[in-house]
């Protein structure tokens, strides 16, 4: 093993929860598949299966269009707790 794996390969959390449909308005649920800078996390790090990764990527893009989730976070435009609206 030349390089140590940073992340352990995991099972698909959405498969375990048997998620059939994701709602883009529920921004808190999307957090798992977003990085600190609100990029969509790759499948190899989250362990999502192909089917659910396709679903989540569509849903995140919808949430971005609806200004529920930021497109980018830079040092100049820091988003302070974008999920604070949620209870």
């Amino acid at each position, binding site marked *: 093993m030349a390089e140590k794996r940073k992340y352990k390969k995991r099972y698909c959390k959405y498969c375990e929860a048997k998620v*059939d*449909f994701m*709602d*883009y*308005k529920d921004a808190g649920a999307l957090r798992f598949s977003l990085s600190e800078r609100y990029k969509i996390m790759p499948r190899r790090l989250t362990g999502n299966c192909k089917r659910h990764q396709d679903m989540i990527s569509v849903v995140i893009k*919808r949430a*971005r*269009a*609806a*200004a*529920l*989730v*930021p*497109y980018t976070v830079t040092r100049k*435009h820091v*988003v302070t707790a*974008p999920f*604070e*609206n949620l209870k």
Partner: protein
Amino acid sequence: MRNYENLVIVKPTLTAEEIQASVKAIEEVITSNGGEIAATSPMGMRKLAYPIEKNERGYYHVIYSSIAPSAISEIERRFRINEDLLRFVTIKYDTNREKAAFNGMVEKAKKAAEAPKVETPAVETPAAVEAPTETPAVETEAPVATEAAAE
């Protein structure tokens, strides 16, 4: 007829009445184009994830409806003309799985619309606020007294 969901963000600079008026006007656009509104759910004033037209906040309103697919382009054209709207998102619910989710969300929205009628009594809150304010005052006095005694 197909199931659609319209999410609409109204300008926050308007007053509460003007917002309600513009939301009604938006719903009229859908009904006048042959759409049937199943349910609506106001998400209320929220902070936007990024500024749109220099606005940091926006009033979110979701409309679940069944509209003929050919009417969507006309409805979106009308939305674009409307200057009260910051953003709109139209989403199609077509497959069986999506339809089931759509019906679930419609029922949720209907229940949420009925729920706010039962208001929680606001009498208890002032008493709860008073109680903590008194106790710190006592605590702050006590250390000062001990410090004075030590000196």
